[in-house]
């Protein structure tokens, strides 16, 4: 019923009271959409030429042989899946992304909560300090981490020596090296979660907490019954968004370990780089990086759904 009414209202200006005016309106509308399309054209061309086309081209490339002459169907994918190294790459990519995102989300959440207690002015100062890892270009800060992980005389090993623990071969042993790559990613990405959560915490209405306090709710109950449900959407968006970025990460592993020791830290991106650029087998590398696609697509779908919901919430 209200729909009909609103339709009737919106139809009013369109009724042709003056026939020629309706014509003008239509012509204006057409001109308007032409202008609108022209304003978008550079972006359309850019994304079509350097995002959509390469993405489709990657699929085609991945089905060629090394010299890129013969069509081999899905052989590259099958070959990769049979390779022990690539099975490890799949495992390591998932381990890297999932562990890093969980730690980033938890640490970011804790930091955001701590910051939320502070007053506005000191909050700015602390935020300024805590965001610094995010500001320094990642390849450069990863170099520092590399230097800190140096096995002979490094920052960390010196500290450990002071408490009587022998030198740790940080990047020389599989599981320790995996831990190191994840730690660097957490260090770099946690401030992003902090900022997102802090913005979301500010949007939780204060009255809800007051009402809960009157009802005798403790801090943990407030967290479980008010904070988390209100922030659910932002948490989901941030986590999935970060999952995409982390999953496709290249810089950290490339600089810190180069995939070693014994390919035990390779992720999809670094493996594709090694196979495609360094060994010159572009089709095989393209096939390797395309294995990222399903996870990226699923995450992207849910991010988009989350954002649509959120904008509806804001509008409502």
């Amino acid at each position: 019923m209200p729909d009909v009414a609103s339709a009737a209202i919106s139809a009013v200006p369109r009724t042709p009271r003056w026939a020629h005016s309706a014509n003008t309106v239509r012509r204006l509308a057409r001109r308007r959409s032409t202008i609108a399309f022209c304003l978008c054209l550079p972006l359309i061309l850019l994304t079509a030429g350097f995002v959509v086309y390469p993405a489709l081209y990657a699929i085609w490339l991945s089905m060629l042989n090394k010299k890129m002459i013969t069509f081999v169907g899905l052989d590259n994918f099958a070959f990769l899946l049979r390779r022990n190294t690539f099975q490890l790459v799949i495992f390591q990519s998932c381990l890297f992304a999932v562990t890093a995102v969980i730690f980033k989300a938890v640490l970011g959440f804790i930091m955001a909560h701590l910051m939320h207690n502070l007053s506005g002015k000191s909050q700015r100062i602390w935020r300024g300090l805590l965001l610094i890892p995010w500001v320094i270009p990642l390849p450069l800060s990863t170099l520092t981490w590399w230097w800190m992980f140096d096995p002979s005389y490094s920052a960390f090993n010196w500290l450990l020596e002071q408490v009587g623990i022998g030198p740790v071969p940080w990047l020389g042993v599989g599981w320790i090296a995996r831990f190191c790559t994840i730690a660097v990613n957490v260090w770099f990405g946690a401030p992003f979660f902090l900022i997102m959560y802090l913005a979301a915490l500010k949007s939780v209405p204060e009255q809800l907490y007051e009402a809960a306090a009157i009802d005798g709710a403790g801090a943990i109950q407030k967290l479980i019954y008010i904070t988390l449900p209100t922030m659910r959407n932002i948490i989901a968006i941030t986590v999935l968004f970060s999952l995409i970025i982390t999953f496709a990460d290249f810089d950290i592993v490339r600089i810190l370990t180069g995939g070693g020791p014994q390919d035990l830290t390779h992720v999809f991106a670094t493996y594709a780089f090694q196979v495609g650029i360094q060994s010159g087998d572009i089709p095989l590398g393209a096939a390797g990086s395309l294995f990222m696609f399903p996870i990226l697509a699923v995450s992207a779908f849910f991010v988009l759904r989350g954002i649509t919901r959120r904008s509806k919430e804001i509008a409502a």
Partner: protein
Amino acid sequence: MSASTVIFDNVPGERRTRSSAERHRKWALWGSYIALGCFVVMLLAPPFYTLMTSLKSSEEISAQSGNPWIVHHPTLANFWYLITYPNFQTYYVNSLMITVVVVVISLAIAIPAAFSLARMRFWGSQAFSTGVFLTYLVPASLLFLPLFKIVGFLGLINNVWCLAVLYPTLAAPFATWIMIGYFSSLPKELDEAALIDGAGYLQMLLKIFIPVAMPGIIAATIFAFTVSWGSFLYPLAYLYTSNQMVLTVGIISDLIRGDVFQWGKIMAACVLASLPPVFIYAFLMDYFVAGLTAGATKG
């Protein structure tokens, strides 16, 4: 009636809980400061170590004695070496040049597109604005191999200008997304008034929307700057000779030769290369943060 009696009954008790709540809050505040202090120490340890190492001489680093976290004989020799080192100058100039061009191109593409998607409609515009966001989610590591062929086809392999073509694909979609958010938040009356005064759409964009949406434009600029200054994969894959390199790959390929690590110089180079983003951040933190959060809270 019953409500007023309840409130009346509660007054003494409430006073007691309020003072205890205040004490509780004070404790929470101090706890927060201490915990945040720990986080700051952990998060700022690497930048601090970068700075310390950059001030050390090669002798001090190779001596391997004493506390590596502090510098015993500070020297600016590493910085001086880099500033007078022609290769490093080339990297810096290349980075600056590419970044300026990329920021200009990205904004020139993003602002009109965002205006059109936020304020005007055309067939498929709704789907396209979703598509813009999706292109932002496509990572560089998925595209760099087919792009290698495309860049080769354009004759731009080992040419620093290939980055001026490729970086806008990373920066423009998100910049557009930020700008769509800003443009949609402006009141509709603004364009109605402009239309009544006889302004065309281009005039409306240039004379009204761009000045009003300046905060959004600054946020988008900072984002494009960050992307273009810090990217690593494309230059590593497509640039080979030192006269074409930018800072991120130049530092790594030039200062690390085989097994020889000149850590003092590498760290000094990191400090110098981090200066522009840190500088911008120090002055425009709020815009920086706005750009960061825009992806999920706007639009």
